[in-house]
């Protein structure tokens, strides 16, 4: 059982049974639910919801929580090599925030009736998905600046809209997260500003980081609307309030002036401003790269999961000690 549980097979079996067990929804209840959504009301854990709404939210929220947790790794990689105490403090605080974000969202998924233990096992055994951006390596200090600026910047665009999602616990977690993300983005942009005004070598390092992270950042918003299987349903239920392409465009429009202020370029020869739509029109995204990374073949997928498993195993004694300590204290209270 122990080996079965940890295996990919177990998760697949588990997933198929879950799908098969989805009960058929009562049309009257679905109609009442959709009326609530149409009226702009939020759905709370004890409210009736279609089985499909519950499973879609569980999928989205757990992937989001996993992304926060795995997202600690690329930056954690630079904590010991931060160039000053000030930068080190900021980076530790940011990484700690991401752990908190993971916790907020895992707690949200638990209100849907899933056990975080199961979700975590899916992450550790490699069957769960998380944001593709964290499967790219962090090669230089400039990457810390560019991740804060672009990756957290993209997350803010996405999460600001998710703060209005129809599921109450998810929306509330997003409000809390958005407040903290602003610090993440600003500390990143500050690093970029310092490098942009630094030596030619520092400027080159910054440009190189932007060249590597630009396209993966655009991919963070997910597949184009024309190829996004889940979009229609999620928009109708107001889980999503904007399409992937709308959010991506908003991000590009916000970011290009920030890049110009730094005096650096983004690696897109087709980029141009359209005065009619006031949009920065960008070139074709390489979706084959996205598919590769999402399906486990990115540059760092293996390394990230191994690091995550090691962290989990190394933390085992802490969990055991906490349980033992609580048991001991309970015995003492009983005796007294």
């Amino acid at each position, binding site marked *: 059982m122990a080996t079965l549980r940890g295996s990919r097979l177990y998760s697949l079996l588990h997933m198929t049974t879950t799908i098969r067990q989805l009960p058929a929804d009562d049309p009257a209840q679905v109609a009442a639910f959709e009326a609530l959504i149409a009226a702009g009301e939020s759905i709370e854990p*004890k409210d009736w919801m279609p089985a499909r709404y519950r499973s879609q939210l569980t999928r989205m929220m757990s992937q989001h929580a996993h992304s926060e947790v795995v997202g600690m790794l690329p930056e954690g990689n630079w904590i010991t090599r931060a160039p000053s105490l000030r930068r080190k403090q900021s980076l530790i605080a940011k990484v700690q925030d991401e752990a*908190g974000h993971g916790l907020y969202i*895992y707690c949200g998924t*638990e209100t849907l009736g899933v056990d975080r233990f199961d979700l*975590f096992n899916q992450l550790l*055994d490699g069957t769960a998905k998380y944001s593709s951006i964290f499967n790219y390596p962090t090669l230089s200090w400039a990457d810390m600046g560019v991740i804060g600026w672009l990756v957290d910047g993209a997350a803010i665009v996405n999460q600001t809209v998710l703060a209005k999602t129809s599921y109450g616990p998810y929306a509330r977690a997003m409000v809390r997260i958005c407040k903290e993300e602003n610090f993440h983005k600003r500390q990143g942009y500050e690093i970029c500003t310092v490098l942009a005004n630094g030596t030619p070598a520092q400027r080159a390092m910054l440009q190189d980081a932007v060249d590597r992270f630009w396209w993966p950042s655009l991919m963070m918003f997910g597949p184009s609307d024309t190829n996004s299987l889940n979009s229609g349903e999620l928009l109708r239920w107001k889980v999503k309030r904007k399409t992937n392409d709308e959010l991506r465009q908003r991000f590009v429009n916000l970011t290009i002036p920030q890049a110009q202020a730094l005096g650096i370029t983004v690696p897109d020869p087709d980029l141009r401003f359209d005065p009619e739509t006031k949009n920065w029109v960008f070139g074709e995204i390489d979706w084959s790269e996205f598919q590769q990374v999402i399906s486990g073949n990115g540059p760092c997928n293996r390394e990230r999961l191994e690091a995550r*498993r090691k962290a989990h195993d190394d933390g*085992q004694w802490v*969990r055991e000690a906490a349980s033992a300590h609580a048991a001991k204290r309970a015995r003492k209270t009983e005796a007294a």
Partner: protein
Amino acid sequence: MAEPTGPTDSHWPLWEVFTQGNVGEPFEHAGSLHATDAEHALQNARDVYARRGEAMNLWVVPSTAITASAPSDAGPFFDPGNDKAYRHPQFYKAPRGIRVF
């Protein structure tokens, strides 16, 4: 791959966390977390929900200790308070030109 063994933190009891932003303000639900006991829950609540001075005070309550009204019965349950217009000041007429408030 090693299967996570022994006690896992998500099998510890669930606690609801309430934060008071400032003295005199009401406590507000912030979220939940797992912890072995009340003291552990308080420490975790501080680390998860009060990293930036968001709270002056914290409450942690075992989730199982909370009894909640059921959304499906919300209509009849809150009905006694919904049809009593005379509990609101707007229900009462005051002579024109007199400031009652």
